[in-house]
């Protein structure tokens, strides 16, 4: 077991734990903070997988901007904690858990096949794979159109959010 692998598995455990905190805790603020922690573990994953730029962007944008937005809204709304089952009883609980288990089981099924095709465990990647330079080159050449569309999307989302969040003007 190489150090990388060891680190990977440790990180995986933390990721699962923090994701569990997000879904289980009653208090919304605690959930939000757990999510921040989770996002950081995912950033660690990215770095381990030679996607360094992405890892940094993850921390800055996701954990830094989006979660702050979440926290703002939580503070604004101050929601009360509530239970899980609500008006649908336990059927929702059991069926959901069952479906989720099925999903994971499906992945387990194809694992052996993957292990065969990917025996090498990943050959050496070219130098600078995942570095900022490589990403930038791809972004402004092959992926120019999606890049521009993404900026339009962000503009539209911003306008939409502005509009939806406005207070009603009562005449």
């Amino acid at each position, binding site marked *: 077991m190489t150090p990388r692998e060891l680190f990977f598995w440790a990180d995986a455990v933390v990721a699962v734990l923090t994701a569990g905190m997000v879904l289980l805790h009653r208090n919304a603020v605690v959930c939000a903070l757990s999510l921040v922690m989770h996002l950081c573990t995912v950033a660690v994953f990215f770095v381990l997988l030679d996607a360094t730029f992405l890892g940094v962007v993850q921390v800055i944008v996701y954990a830094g901007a989006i979660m702050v937005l979440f926290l703002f809204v939580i503070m604004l709304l101050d929601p009360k904690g509530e239970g899980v089952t609500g008006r649908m009883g336990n059927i929702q609980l059991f069926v959901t858990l069952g479906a989720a288990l099925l999903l994971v089981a499906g992945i387990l099924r194809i694992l052996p096949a993957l292990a065969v095709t990917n025996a090498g*465990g990943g050959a050496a990647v070219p130098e600078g794979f995942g570095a900022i330079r490589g990403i930038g080159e791809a972004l402004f050449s092959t992926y120019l159109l999606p890049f521009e569309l993404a900026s339009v999307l962000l503009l539209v989302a911003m306008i939409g*959010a502005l509009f939806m969040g406005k207070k009603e003007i009562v005449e």
Partner: protein
Amino acid sequence: MISFGAILLVSGILFAMGVVGVLLRRSALVILMSIEVMLNAANLAFVGASRSVGSIDGQMFAFFVMAVAAAEAAVGLAIIIALFRQRHTTDVDQVSFLKW
């Protein structure tokens, strides 16, 4: 090296946990957070695939997913705020109007 299968397994488990969170929590905010968990699991799978294939396309995909997630989070939160103003609650079971 980290095998692609392991990455997929972790991604799958995280995704399933995100789904369970979406389906079992009643607070709209926590549901949105669970959606973020799901998106991140997907991102993890993309990056892992990119590494194992050796192409940068996977990371690009993950990049754009992140952009879209940001937009979606913003709009989603705006909707929750608007809903809260109407109903004074974030409990999705209280807003069961999507029926005839």
